[in-house]
């Protein structure tokens, strides 16, 4: 393996055969159900593939992630994978990894390094594309409709990559139809509470909301509570589009409270382990691997729900 055995420093008690690969994985944190599912998928897949996993949680801090990667380098793991907290500022530490001959795989979020040799591949969703898919459904759904459509948007955490990209993709797509207008947009911090509180305020200041676009299911679910409290019927009076497709969201979709969900798949584990084995063996891998993702409407949700794991 690429520079592996050099230090020979596998964690104590590894025991099982000298050839077990070690993967250092630095996770963003545990800030959402999506993220937890993502973590679990990675852990399970590593176990199944017989890869030893060094897991480190960065508590949403880039500096912690950099520290973790440095310590992976020191421990001379075979492959490093991480979900960057933020796009910028990875060059230094990635350079160190490169110097130590440890291949790096990005998951979930990209980095904006101009030097693409710093990492082997990027495995993850395309947030802009997710926004586009959400917008596309709305464009189609309202095609041939009469009069303006008032949209409110629940953004993710201000400044976070998914929030920026999902807003961008959505805005760019609905621009096709001049009737579609975002009349209010506010951050709900990706949380149910935030979604509920912001939606409550929207409902009071804008009596004529037709569509809600939420950057994740959780905010959408919170908003549903607010819509119901206001005496309106979610999914009917106000159409709801969200992103993620976690179990609770799918349930709401199946119940008709949400109209459309763009999937953002957290179960990257198996795909990641394949890539790990390949790069460790020195095989060529594509620069970009997009997660297999789909979209759901009510019927699809009903079908998918029983086998939904997260």
């Amino acid at each position, binding site marked *: 393996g690429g520079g592996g055995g050099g230090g020979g420093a596998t964690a104590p008690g590894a025991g099982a055969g000298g050839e077990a690969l070690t993967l250092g994985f630095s996770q963003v*944190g*545990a*800030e*959402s*159900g999506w*993220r*937890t599912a993502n*973590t679990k998928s990675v852990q399970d897949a590593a176990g199944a593939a017989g890869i030893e996993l060094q897991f480190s949680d960065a508590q949403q801090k880039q500096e912690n992630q950099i520290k973790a990667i440095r310590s992976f380098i020191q421990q001379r793991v075979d492959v490093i994978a991480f979900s960057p907290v933020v796009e910028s500022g990875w060059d230094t530490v990635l350079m160190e990894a490169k110097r130590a001959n440890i291949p790096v795989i990005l998951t979930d979020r990209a980095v904006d390094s101009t030097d693409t040799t710093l990492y082997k591949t990027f495995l993850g969703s395309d947030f802009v594309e997710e926004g586009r898919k959400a917008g596309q459904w709305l464009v189609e759904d309202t095609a041939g409709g009469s009069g303006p459509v008032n949209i409110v948007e629940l*953004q993710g955490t*201000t*400044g976070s990559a998914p929030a920026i990209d999902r807003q961008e993709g959505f805005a760019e797509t609905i621009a096709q139809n001049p009737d579609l207008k975002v009349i*209010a*947009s*506010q*951050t709900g*911090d*990706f*949380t*149910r*509470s*935030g*979604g*509920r*509180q*912001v939606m*409550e*305020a*929207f409902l*009071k*200041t804008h*009596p004529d909301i037709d569509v809600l676009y939420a950057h994740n299911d*959780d905010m959408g*679910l*919170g908003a549903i*509570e607010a819509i119901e*409290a*206001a*005496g309106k019927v979610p999914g009917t009076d106000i159409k709801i589009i969200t992103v993620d497709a*976690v179990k*609770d969201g799918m349930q709401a979709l199946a119940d008709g409270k949400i109209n459309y969900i763009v999937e953002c798949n957290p179960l990257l584990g198996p795909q990641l382990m394949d890539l790990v084995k390949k790069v460790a063996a020195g095989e060529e891998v594509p620069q970009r691997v997009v997660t297999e993702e789909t979209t759901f409407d009510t019927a699809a949700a009903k079908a998918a729900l029983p086998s939904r794991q997260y």
Partner: protein
Amino acid sequence: MPSFFAVRLQDGRLYGSLIDILHNGAPLALAALGMTLVIATRGIDLSVGTVVAISGAVACTWIASSPDPASPGTALTGIGLALALAAALGAWNGFLVARLGIQPIIATLVLMTAGRGLAQLVTDGQIITVNNGFFAGISGSALLAVPLTVVVAAAVYALVALVTRRTALGTLVEAVGINPEASRLAGVRSQSIVWTVYVFAALCAAVAGLMISSNVNAADANNAGLWLELDAILAVVIGGTSLAGGRYSIAGTLLGALTIQTLTTTIYSVGIPPEVSLVFKALVVILVFLAQAPKVRALMRRRRRRRDDAPPPAATAVPAETAGSGR
């Protein structure tokens, strides 16, 4: 044209922006109430936000994992568990501060850090959704058309006001905060008072946590109550209580909490873009404090004295100002 001030009846419950402020402000008001007493003893409690998360996590996990997740009995047990655990956590803080003599900010930082992990451990990192009518009722039901959250918060305020007024607790808390050594020499059981206020603060936070998770019928261990401690401290200070301990004002804290919530709701309502909302919040906080600062008021008074001699108290100008910016 909907008005910021319009209040109507909807499904037997008052409905309107003002009601939202009260309803959404109730958890903050409660957390700030506990914080007021802690601060009065020269302490500070950074763990309230974490306790919020723990109490929601414990209650929801209990309910969701019980064989009968929809029954009121399950909900009650869950609530009881959450409160009991919170009391224990408060006692833990009290132990570190009163017995071991660790500085409050760092003693409660321990729980602030570890507690969120504890909450995630309980929920296994998932958002636990519950479907329990009784539990949903904590925030969803109303008493005489007033949301239950508002009723509960008001009742706790009234109770604390009564207890601190009718018993000697208020005075003794202040004495401990103003001069701990003199209080000790006067025979005040400062240790048990300190324990009491930390336990009370944790209980308040737990109730706030139940409200927050009932509001969305889910427990979010990672985000529930995040940074709530800062808002609570801010509310206490807006209310005129000094962080140096000693004299405190319960009514002031209530006003402070409502001011903060009004500000938040206003930001959502008038459509201030998220990227400038923090700057806006900062400016309002600065303005509120400038208006309240005794120094500034003295200056204003001196200038005004020449013209007329009845300066309006600045504190009452606060809600008026924020309300005025709603349309």
